């Protein structure tokens, strides 16, 4: 199996789906000739031509609005919003139409589109280029919201998203884009949307996370295991909406202690929903307060201070230890 970065794996997913299905159209700013500012769509225009890999004018609402029309027609648009920090410009198109057209037309029309966009910090980017606001989409009825954590699951999930009959918001952790390589099989591989993943088995504490935070969480888990004999269980959500809480609930019942990690600001962030689900479904098994290790409730600082803003292995280790020290 070839070793690939997430960028390459996503590129492969797009290429293979485009080969199989001429309904799949890639569109967005700089996705064609330039191959995307992160090169996720690199080479696609050479292979499939400008009719299927469409460079658009600079207008996010139009990109999404046009994708909706294409999807209603029966195509499978995969549009790219260059950075999630600019996806607010198409917010109404998602809220008012992409997520609703199936319902508004009572099943007559569907919107099988994918909105791909890179999110999150850690790559020394410009202002507005490092935000994590996944809650905006996760909270919206009628949407699916996927966040892969590594090359292999990114590829499998993107294939599933493209084939999904409903609109899927696909957040790509840009800090992972080129951070490491994984074996990605050339053969078709999909992952079910709406299933979380047991990324590490353990017994003493449950760590729940997704996206770019999976790596520091696993690093923290290894350190805890090696130096403290603590064996954390790690859950990688993969899908934020619809949220699959079975794995978290099971794990929390087993360990009794939970730490949640995400980049997004804490208040009203995705972690809050996880706490609420655990309280609803594993309340009597919780031995200590569920901890959230998150971005602060701040405007994401420019890159000189982003390391201090983002959760890291050290902060996670500390939170786990405090959670384990808390009286049962």
């Amino acid at each position, binding site marked *: 199996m070839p070793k690939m970065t997430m960028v390459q794996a996503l590129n492969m997913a797009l290429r293979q789906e485009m080969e199989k299905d001429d309904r799949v159209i890639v569109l967005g700013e700089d996705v064609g000739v330039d191959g995307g500012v992160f090169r996720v769509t690199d080479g696609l225009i050479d292979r499939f031509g400008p009719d299927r890999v469409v460079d658009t004018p600079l207008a996010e609402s139009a990109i999404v609005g046009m994708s909706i029309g294409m999807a209603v027609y029966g195509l499978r648009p995969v549009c790219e919003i260059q950075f999630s920090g600019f996806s607010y410009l198409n917010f109404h198109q998602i809220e008012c139409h992409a997520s609703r057209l199936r319902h508004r037309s009572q099943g007559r029309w569907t919107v099988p589109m994918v909105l791909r966009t890179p999110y999150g910090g850690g790559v020394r980017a410009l202002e507005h280029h490092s935000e994590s606001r996944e809650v905006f989409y996760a909270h919206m009825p009628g949407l699916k919201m996927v966040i892969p954590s590594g090359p292999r699951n990114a590829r499998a999930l993107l294939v599933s998203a493209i084939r999904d009959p409903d609109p899927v918001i696909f957040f790509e952790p840009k800090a992972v884009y080129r951070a490491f390589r994984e074996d990605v099989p050339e053969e078709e591989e999909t992952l079910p949307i709406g299933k979380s993943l047991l990324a590490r088995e353990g017994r003493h504490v449950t760590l729940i996370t997704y996206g770019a935070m999976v790596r520091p969480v696993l690093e923290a888990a290894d350190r805890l295991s090696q130096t403290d004999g603590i064996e954390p269980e790690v859950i990688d959500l993969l899908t934020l909406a619809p949220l699959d809480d079975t794995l978290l609930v099971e794990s929390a019942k087993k360990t009794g202690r939970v730490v949640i990690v995400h980049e997004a600001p804490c208040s009203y962030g995705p972690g809050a929903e996880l706490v609420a689900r655990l309280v609803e479904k594993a309340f009597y098994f919780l031995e200590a307060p569920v901890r959230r290790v998150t971005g602060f409730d701040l405007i994401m600082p420019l890159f000189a201070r982003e390391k201090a803003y983002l959760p890291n292995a050290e902060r996670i280790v500390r939170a786990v230890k405090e959670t*384990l020290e808390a009286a*049962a």
Partner: protein
Amino acid sequence: VQEPEARDKREGLPVAASPATRRLARELGVDLRQVRASGPGGRVTADDVRQAAQAIHEPKEVPLKPAEAAPS
């Protein structure tokens, strides 16, 4: 920093109890693992903890601290 073996005290599934019951148990010096559960789903209730506390307190003088509780 905890010793690695300290973790082993936490082996086994958590005892089912509300956080408030856990606090009560802690305050009364009761090890939840030693308490007979009467609540739904095998849950230890606050009353269970109070009864257990009485049982501990009446025959013996010295309350059992959680740290001294035997591992299950």
